[in-house]
């Protein structure tokens, strides 16, 4: 690997494996554990969720993670963002990651929109100074106007989503991790969101997007297809979506056939 490769590389996932321990029946109480221990009824089975997954993402790239439900996409996203520690392997990241897995994490319904901007951004890992700097753009983008001073329990769900989205995309970040492209608010606002994401792309923000729909082609040129916890294909998005849809169609046909 040459030096220029190193500086271009932003994210590198090396041989990541992850499994969850599952009791046959969920044991989450002490009583249950003791009763089962006495009955020798503690069958654990491991559910292998990711198997030896490796890939690299360069600065400014936009990558789509596709795959059917349960293929391990969201778990991979959590590992990449550092929420879950991987069982094996490692993740290296050379920039600031904003996980946009949930809009408005930590919102407190009794507090005002303004207070929640600070709370949400602080939970996402931003210091006060940076939030102060971006406060006006955030409020402006959310189009909440005077409502920003009202407690957010008076907000509609669309208003809440707008506030959450506005916080997430207006704060500086090198990698944006998105779980499903978020169609937020009404048509006009959702267009604004797409435009904002375009703008971030143009400014060189790296994207990693989990999606089922082909709408991610708007941002991504590369796709990674996860199947059963392993990478089945990695490459040009059009090519991979073609194979992926073919595979999905084949499966449904197979099932509906008599």
């Amino acid at each position, binding site marked *: 690997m040459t030096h220029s490769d190193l500086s271009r590389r932003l994210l590198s996932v090396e041989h990541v494996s992850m499994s*969850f321990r599952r009791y046959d029946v969920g044991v989450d109480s002490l009583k249950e554990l003791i009763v089962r221990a006495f009955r020798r009824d503690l069958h654990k089975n491991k559910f292998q969720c990711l198997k030896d997954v490796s890939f690299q993402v360069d600065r400014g790239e936009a990558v789509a993670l596709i795959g059917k439900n349960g293929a391990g996409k969201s778990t991979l996203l959590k590992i990449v963002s550092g*929420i879950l520690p991987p069982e094996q392997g490692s993740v290296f990241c050379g920039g600031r990651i904003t996980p946009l897995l949930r809009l408005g994490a930590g919102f407190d319904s009794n507090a005002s929109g303004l207070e929640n901007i600070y709370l949400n951004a602080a939970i996402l890992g931003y210091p006060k100074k940076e939030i102060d700097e971006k406060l006006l753009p955030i409020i402006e983008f959310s189009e909440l106007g005077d409502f920003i001073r009202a407690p957010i329990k008076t907000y509609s769900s669309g208003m809440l989503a707008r506030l959450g989205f506005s916080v997430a995309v207006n704060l500086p970040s090198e990698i944006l991790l998105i779980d499903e492209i978020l169609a937020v608010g009404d048509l006009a606002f959702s267009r604004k969101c797409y435009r904002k994401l375009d703008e971030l792309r143009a400014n060189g923000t790296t994207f990693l997007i989990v999606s089922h729909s082909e709408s991610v082609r708007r941002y991504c040129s590369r796709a990674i297809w996860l199947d059963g916890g392993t990478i089945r294909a990695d490459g040009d998005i059009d090519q991979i979506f073609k194979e992926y849809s073919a595979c999905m169609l084949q499966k449904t046909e197979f099932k509906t056939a008599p």
Partner: protein
Amino acid sequence: MTKKRNFFQALFLLRLLVQRNIKNQYYRSVIGILWTVLNPLLNMLVMAFVFSVLFGSETDGLDYPVYILAGNIIFNVMRSSTASALPCLVQQRDMLLKTKVHAEIFPISNVLSSLVTFFFSLIALLLVMILRAMSGFYSFHWQIILFPLLLPALSLFSAGIAFFLSALYVFFRDIKHIYSVILTLWTYLTPLFYSLKKLQSETAARFIRLNPMYHFVTLFRTMLVGTVPPLSSFALCYLFSAISIALGCLFFSLLRPRIAARL
């Protein structure tokens, strides 16, 4: 540089979380923050009314209402911080699963919130002390101002338990019921409304002396009576808190990698 930045960022988040806790605690009530003062005051009134019949008016050289209130506000720091920390990680499931926020920050914020509430309760204690001093039952002593020396020990002791319980609750959801029983037992095993001297049972007294909360409560009352507590009393309290925080942190850091997967 980034370490320093991260540290200040964590402090900032901690401040916001404590603010949120305090605001939400009394949010719905009309008189709001006044409840933090009124609540211990009313509790003390009930207890003073009920128990002064049993135990007389002066206890260990301290006026009985002051005795009760002083014991209770100290015990409440431990009680409220551990009881609120117990479910805190599970309650913040969303944040812990969707953002990179450090899990430790939630139990810590609960302990700090209880500490803030303690200062409001202190106002209640001062009010009672002034009232009792006016009727000649209590006299002020300068030693009261030593009380901040007790607070770090008390907070660390509570934080240790808070770490332990919040992590354990992620795995065993029924410890909530067990802990509420333990808390009740603990309340009665701490001389809050009675006094060890009047207990007249050496075995019981010996047993109660093993209770760390007895030493915290006694240390505070000693100051109110007007004596500078011996260094050994402070040392004992700090020893308890060191053991508690060490075990709590150890337990928390051992379970830490498995918390997100089990939430």
